[in-house]
Structure formats: structure tokens, C-alpha cells
């Protein structure tokens, strides 16, 4: 009987330790994922690209075309969008972007092929 109780107690302790390890592991994983996102400065790279593009669009005269390489100096731009007078760039597999507003007087369009993005100021 004593042995059985001792076994149960050990099992209970082991169960608690495993549970604790899983939770600590999850917290650590979440922490490292968030910290990595900050440390590799993808957010700053994204900001640089979006603001560079916004300034180019703002100052461009009519009938201008910009070519932006997908393999940009600030990382690989896996997607770029233009909507609601804002430009969005997603660098190195980023999924979120708040975008940046531009104020061009002209209509702005974006097209892409395998290697480049093209911004048309019409």
C-alpha cells in the first residue's frame, strides 16, 4: 500500500514537472519568436522600403515608371501592395504591414513579374 502511494506521488510529481516544462517551453518559444522578429530588424527594413517608395511616388511627375527588384538590398520583397493611397511591402516572409501613406496627385498602379515590381504614375 505504501509502495503504491509512493508510486502515485512520483507519477504525480513527474506529471507536474512535464506540464511545467511544456508551459515554460511554450513561453520561451513565443518569446524567442517575438525577439527574433525584433532583432533581425525586418520591421525597420520594411519601413525603409515603404517610405522610400512613398517618397518616390510623392515626388514623381506624371508618366513615370519605377522598377523595384524583388531581391532588394534590404531583403527579399515577397509581396508589395498599393491600396487606399498606402503602399505595403512585405520583406523576408513578413505577414503584417501597416503600410505608409503617399499623396501623389496622379493615379498609381503596381504590377509585378518574376523579378521586379513596377510602379506606374499615370
Amino acid at each position, binding site marked *: 500500500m505504501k509502495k503504491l502511494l509512493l508510486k502515485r506521488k512520483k507519477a504525480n510529481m513527474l506529471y507536474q514537472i512535464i506540464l511545467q516544462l511544456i508551459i515554460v517551453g511554450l*513561453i520561451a518559444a513565443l518569446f524567442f519568436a517575438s525577439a527574433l522578429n525584433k532583432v533581425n530588424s525586418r*520591421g*525597420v527594413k520594411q519601413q525603409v522600403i515603404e517610405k522610400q517608395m512613398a517618397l518616390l511616388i510623392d515626388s514623381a511627375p506624371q508618366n513615370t515608371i519605377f522598377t523595384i527588384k524583388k531581391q532588394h538590398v534590404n531583403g527579399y520583397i515577397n509581396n508589395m501592395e498599393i491600396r487606399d493611397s498606402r503602399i505595403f511591402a512585405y520583406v523576408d516572409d513578413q505577414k503584417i504591414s501597416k503600410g505608409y501613406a503617399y499623396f501623389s496627385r496622379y493615379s498609381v498602379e503596381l504590377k509585378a513579374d518574376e523579378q521586379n515590381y513596377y510602379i506606374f504614375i499615370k
Partner: protein
Amino acid sequence: MINKHAATGEGILNIYRMLIVTIIALVILGSSSLFYNYYIDIRSVESVIISKQVINCLAPDASLSLDFMGSFQDAMKEKLSKCNLISESRYLRIMLFFDSDPKRELSAVFGNTALNTIKSSSSGTVKSVNARYFPGCASEQYRIIIGENSNKLDGVLNVEACFPYDN
């Protein structure tokens, strides 16, 4: 026999440990995001760009005609609307000064005037840490000829633009 009090105590201790781990993780994350985040402020550049667009719209050949009916504000509004330069999200102030009469001055204001109020009230007190939340402004001056044909006057067109905070 299991001591229920001891088991409860151990459970509370576990929660306490978890909380400590979470708080430490959050503190490290918070401080890392504080050090690694960087805000690139381009609003003063945008203000200069829009000022140049305003001058190109109002006086493309460096001369501004003043043959309008009604107020200076309405005339400027009409011209700037044609160029699609008026927006409620930013502040724009156009001032016209005459060389011949320094006291004479025409002024027109468009957009979000609160931006200029915030800028004026915060001047000199803005710390670099929170400067991003204050409007980014620029003021540009251009020498122009005011009027047409025989009635030409020299003057200065001052364009002041402010942009609000945008991530």
C-alpha cells in the same frame, strides 16, 4: 495519504513560477523592442515635397495671377483643388507677402489646423523619444511675381505644410 494542503501549496507555487517566467520574458521582449525599433521620420521631407507641388500648382512660371473674385482663401482653394492638393489629413498654409508693402499679407489655410496648433504648442518641449507623435512640418519660401501685364509686383509666397504621425 496525500496531504491536500501541501498539494494546493505546490499548485500555487507553480502558478507563481509561471508568472515569474512570463514577466521576465515580457521584460526582455519589451526592452529588446525598445532598443531594436527605429522610427524613420520622413514627414519634413514630405512637407517640402508638397510645398514644391503647391508652388508648381499656383505659380508654375513663378508668377501668380490675382485676378480673382471673392477671398484669397476661396481662390487658393479652387486652384489647389484642381491640382488635388487639399487633404483633411494634413495642414497647409499659404501666405503671400508683397515687397512694395511689407504690411500687406494674404493668407489661406487648409486641412487639419489642429496639427499646426499642436506643433506651435509643443515647440521647444518635444523630446526626441516622443517627437514622432508630433506633426512633422516644413516651411518653404519662393520669390514670385504677383499680378499680370502692367500691374506686376514682386513678392514672396510662403508655403507651410504639416503631416501627422503615421507608423
